């Protein structure tokens, strides 16, 4: 019997493994539809819409002028005004979807993973004394994951 820990984790953005990821997590929930009829004493339900969302924390780093994966990911939603619209406060590049793979390295060729197209729903970056600058990202899968082998 084999157990796994953070040392076995891996995180891919758009097909590339991310070097400095601190943690990732995902959460799948299913809404229930109430079917309790008059005369019933206990609630009855059936499955409704399923939702998969997740989060990750990436360390921010630069290699000389080259920015790391953290920048690559947050740029999907953190956008300044661009081009001729710099004087227009309400105009900037629209948020983009990206693909993520949350992977467990188990010794097999592909490992175990959940992957799919995601919409980033938040990016929080905190600079603080004693902490490495990092970004906390939350995301929502576009429909069901493309593949889930965990």
């Amino acid at each position, binding site marked *: 019997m084999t157990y796994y820990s953070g040392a076995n984790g891996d995180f891919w953005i758009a097909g590339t493994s991310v070097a400095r990821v601190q943690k990732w997590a995902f959460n799948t929930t299913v809404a229930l*539809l*109430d*079917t*309790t*009829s*008059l*005369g*019933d004493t206990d609630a009855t339900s*059936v499955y409704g819409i399923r939702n998969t969302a997740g989060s990750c924390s990436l360390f921010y780093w630069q290699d000389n002028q080259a920015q790391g994966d953290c920048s690559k990911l947050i740029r999907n939603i953190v956008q300044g005004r661009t081009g001729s619209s710099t004087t227009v406060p309400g105009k900037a590049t629209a948020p983009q979807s990206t693909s993520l793979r949350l992977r467990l390295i188990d010794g097999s060729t592909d490992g175990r993973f959940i992957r799919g197209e995601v919409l980033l729903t938040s990016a929080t970056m905190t600079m603080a004394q004693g902490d490495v600058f990092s970004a906390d990202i939350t995301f929502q899968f576009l429909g069901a994951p493309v593949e889930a082998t965990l």
Partner: protein
Amino acid sequence: MTHYPRFPVPTGRIYKAGDYSHGTHRAMSGAEIRILFGNKRLASTIQLIYKNIPDKEAEVLLDHYNSVKGTFESFEARGAIFNAGWKGPTKSFLNDTVHTTDLEWRYAQPPQLQSGYIGRSSVTVDLVTVTY
């Protein structure tokens, strides 16, 4: 005479007891005279709510609506739509035939069907009593 479908059992029910037919006359002095025109209660209504029922059962309800020509014809209604969840001493209290006569029902308006999750719908049916 068709009967309202006994199944599915509603998930909710709102009943309004109707009223006795009467007239009100007010004199110039402000005095009010009320005249009772009959001894039977009229126009009780019931709203039946079917939340998240299978589409197959929703079809049963709509089929019945078609079978009585929509709001045109009247029909009998008994059973779970009145009794389910009701623990009063008179089992058929909501389908009262004591204080009304030859009680029948008809659709007060077309049923409303709300589509939700795959294979599940919510239907709301409004019925009103017809007294002969």
